[in-house]
């Protein structure tokens, strides 16, 4: 049976939402994905293919999940041990969710925060993944045309999840590398004032902590600044804490839930948390999103809206069992964090050896890589040119900073947790080759120019880190280094 759609001008009898670009997939940033899909890397099948480093997925600890599932077959109700509970589970369609599931999620969230905050299972609301959680929160807090402020750089998916069907705007709070992209009071005020001057009603601030793409956690001071700001301006604070279980290094994680427990003056009706198991547990296929709001009206509304994205009761049952196993969750979190820490160290040290610096990070599944030295000029166009070279020649799908609305060109997000050690080494070696090639080209170009010219090839003068300067200007390319790659 053929599908129709071409004969008549049906495009116009669809809605605006169906025909606009709110899904974001027409942006040029998807070229990286397309390149990967056309030529995906496989160790034996396609060793020269594009390595996927643009998807923040946590695959380092799936073996632990697998082991647990094997040891606990009754949790999967389709096995012999679990069948007796099957009928009740299959028929259960209450949007409050299984009580055991809510309790287990609350418990897990407390554990991730080291017991420094309490979570009430009755406030746990389900949604269709973190994507659904963000959208539902936007539907609950803002009307079409109203806006949320968001610090840059930020996850591009928010443009779609928070804005597409809701009609809510996202306005940037600009952050800069000069202070490691921290949110300042001044930046907050500037963004707020700008919105007010454009007659846009700001309903709240949306932050991600730990940050995507930075891979850093927010310090207590910044969180306090945010909490005071929203209380003063009477707006909401939405914290996406989807990476809270991936904090593997100091400083220790501080969640907004912890900050408000210490703050009796904070109006809790303004605080909302979005969470998911997709990153911390590495199970995005389970589609488990959580909205945790301290505002009763929002809990009530979000719960009714959860009908559009309920978690399968089979999955709820499985997770209630898994997350209720305290021994498992303790050891899983510890092991996962160790593995992430080790993986990141291997990656960043490999990069450092070729003079590439990453922002210091202690969380997340990615690095925020600084390739500004390799840019011919500090513009978005130069960044995108470099990016295309990296995709097409180096064959790595990484994400350019401009897709994250970063105000400084030259930063790239590189994911490291969705591959094994061998693929990681191959990726590193490709980067090394590329950097040396760029250095060769830079040196040759330099020799053709006048010495006193303001050289802005791959080496902007402001950059003073000696580890970067060394391979460009002073040392020749040792054949030994070449052999090592």
């Amino acid at each position, binding site marked *: 049976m053929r*599908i129709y759609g071409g004969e008549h001008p049906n495009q116009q*009898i669809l809605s605006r939402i*169906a025909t606009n670009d709110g899904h974001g997939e027409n942006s040029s940033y998807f070229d990286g994905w397309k390149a990967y899909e056309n030529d995906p890397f496989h160790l034996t099948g396609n060793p020269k293919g594009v390595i996927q480093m643009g998807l923040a997925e946590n695959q380092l600890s799936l073996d632990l999940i697998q082991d647990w599932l094997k040891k606990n077959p009754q949790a999967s109700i389709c096995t012999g041990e679990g069948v007796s509970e099957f009928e009740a589970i299959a028929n259960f369609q209450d949007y409050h969710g299984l009580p055991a599931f809510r309790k287990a999620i609350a418990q897990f969230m407390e554990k991730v925060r080291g017991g420094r905050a309490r979570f009430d299972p009755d406030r746990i609301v389900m949604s269709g993944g973190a994507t659904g959680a963000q*959208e539902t929160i936007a539907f*609950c807090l*803002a009307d079409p045309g109203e806006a949320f402020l968001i610090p840059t750089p930020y996850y591009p998916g928010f443009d779609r999840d928070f804005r597409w069907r809701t009609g809510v705007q996202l306005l940037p709070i600009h952050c800069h590398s000069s202070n490691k992209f921290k949110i300042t009071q001044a930046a907050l005020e500037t963004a707020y004032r700008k919105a007010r001057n454009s007659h846009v009603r700001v309903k709240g601030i949306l932050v991600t902590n730990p940050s995507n793409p930075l891979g850093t956690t927010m310090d207590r001071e910044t969180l306090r600044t945010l909490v005071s700001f929203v209380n003063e301006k009477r707006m909401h604070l939405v914290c996406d804490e989807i990476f809270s279980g991936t904090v593997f290094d100091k400083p220790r994680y501080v969640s907004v839930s912890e900050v408000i427990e210490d703050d009796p003056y904070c109006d809790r009706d303004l605080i909302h948390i979005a969470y998911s198991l997709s990153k911390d547990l590495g199970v995005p*296929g389970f*589609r488990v999103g959580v909205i945790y709001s301290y505002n009763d009206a929002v809990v009530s509304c979000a719960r009714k809206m959860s009908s559009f994205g309920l978690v*399968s009761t*089979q999955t709820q049952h499985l997770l209630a069992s898994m997350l209720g196993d305290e021994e498992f969750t303790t050891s899983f979190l510890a092991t996962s964090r160790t593995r992430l820490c080790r993986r990141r160290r291997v990656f960043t040290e490999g990069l450092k050896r070729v003079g590439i610096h990453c922002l210091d990070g202690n969380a997340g599944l990615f690095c925020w890589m600084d390739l500004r030295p390799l840019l011919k000029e500090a513009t978005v166009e130069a960044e995108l040119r470099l990016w295309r070279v990296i995709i097409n020649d180096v064959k790595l799908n990484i994400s350019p900073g401009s897709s994250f609305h970063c105000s400084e060109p030259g930063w790239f997000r590189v994911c490291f947790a969705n591959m094994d050690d061998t693929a990681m080494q191959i990726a590193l070696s490709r980067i090394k080759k590329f950097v040396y090639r760029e250095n060769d080209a830079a040196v040759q170009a330099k020799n053709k120019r006048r010495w006193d010219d303001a050289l802005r090839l791959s080496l902007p003068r402001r950059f003073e880190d000696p580890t970067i300067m060394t391979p460009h200007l002073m040392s020749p390319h040792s054949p030994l280094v070449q052999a090592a790659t």
Partner: protein
Amino acid sequence: MSPTPSKKSADAAAAAATQARSSATGLGGGGGGAGMRLIVPLQGVVQGRGGLVLGTLIPCALFYFLQLYLRRNRSPPPTSPQPPAANGPDLPGIVRSSSRNFLSARGSSGHAAVSSRAASIARSGDSPYFVGTKKCSEDPYHPVDNPDGVIQLGLAENRLSLDLIGDWFARNVKDALLDEREGGLSISGLTTYQPFDGLVELKMAVAEFMGQVMQGSVSFDPSQIIMTSGATPALEILSFCLADAGNAFLVPSPYYPGYDRNIRWRAGIELIPVPCRGTDNFDLSIPALERAYNQAKMRGVKVRAVLFSNPSNPVGNLLHRETLRDILDFVTEKGIHVIVDEVFAGSIHGTEDFVSMAEVVNTDEFDRSRVHVVYGLSKDLSIPGFRIGLIYSFNEHVIAAASKLARFSSVSVPTQQLLISMLTDTKFITQYIKTNRERLRVMYALLVNGLKQLGVESVKSSGGFYCWMDMSKFMKSYSEKGELELWKEMLSVAKIHLTPGTACHCIEPGWFRLCFTTLTEKDVPVVLERIKRVVDNH
């Protein structure tokens, strides 16, 4: 050139203004004296002695202060949800607010408001649907433990054939999630990101299943399927694709109360009921559709689609092939879409044959790109908890848009794997469909005969889980109020929870929807006896 008021007229205007101001601050007293001071200059104006200036200035001033008074005294809407009633069934009015009626959500000063949508949902309180369900969960009937509890007959759950599904899993246990044998499923197949609109294998298995459900009369193309976490989001996503906020769908009434939520809430699309009558057996009439369409047009409302369920919820009748063709003609002529909700297609218990819209459209004379079907496994396979629904569209642009929107409502991957496993056992599925239909038929017959003996008539239903009963002769007054009172009596005296016709937007009072698929054969006499309690009172 603006006229400069003379001192006398300025005084009079000031006096009038003072009066208006004092009434604006809410002081109701001093009516007599204040009135005289207003009337005198007004009298002058009316009799033409006030002059042009007084004649314009005073009325304008009065008008201005009247507006100010009204604006100040309009009370702000509350933003917190209303608490449920503690004793007895609560009967707030049915929510019929237009989707465009988003009132301001500004609460008292200092309170950060939620969105208009959230505020209107909180303000609407709970419909009888939710209130009754709550009573059932507080005092649930159990044949042994709580024989006098409230029997829930308002929620669509099919327990008649759940055991068949449970048995299948018990028999086919082979570690379906983590089969490590060659060709089996690895952990990453379960946990990693998969296409948001469903695994290809599931779409193929579901297409096959739908073909079986329709008794082989039509085959379904997996590439036209978008999987969603239930039929609820399927319908919402389709609504977002086919209409903009403020547009409308025509829906024959009575209709499933959930449509009000699925379509109006977030998509902001109005639902215009097209009333069907008991005398016509609640069949849809095209002239009624035509009338509703024209009325909407006159109001300036753009109708984008016709939505109906087949088998119908709540009535349970099946639409004839000719009616389906007539509807297709209608939507083609008007240049709009048609959405058919076929979630009960596999639950036919009558002798009539079910005709799917997909079958009718399977000829070249219709523009298929207007046709969209919503389906799901919650009803026909008794697994509502697993959240498996789908959109089946003949329009490639809708499929493209819906596949992107499916990310907000995607089916859990382990659940998808589970279903692939079950649906590919076609022998079991054929047997299941047949047995399920037989059990539905038996239960339906048992109940309807019992009801008839009590003097309760119901519309002949051929499919679905419901009995659409006419209890109008037991109402005190033939009105919505009478119906709600009867509903209250059923809940408190008979202790059964039914869905009243008003919740389904039925234009005739006195109809009640009863779901019979949660009952066992032993429960039927209990239910009949309870109904008798109320019947005997009248």
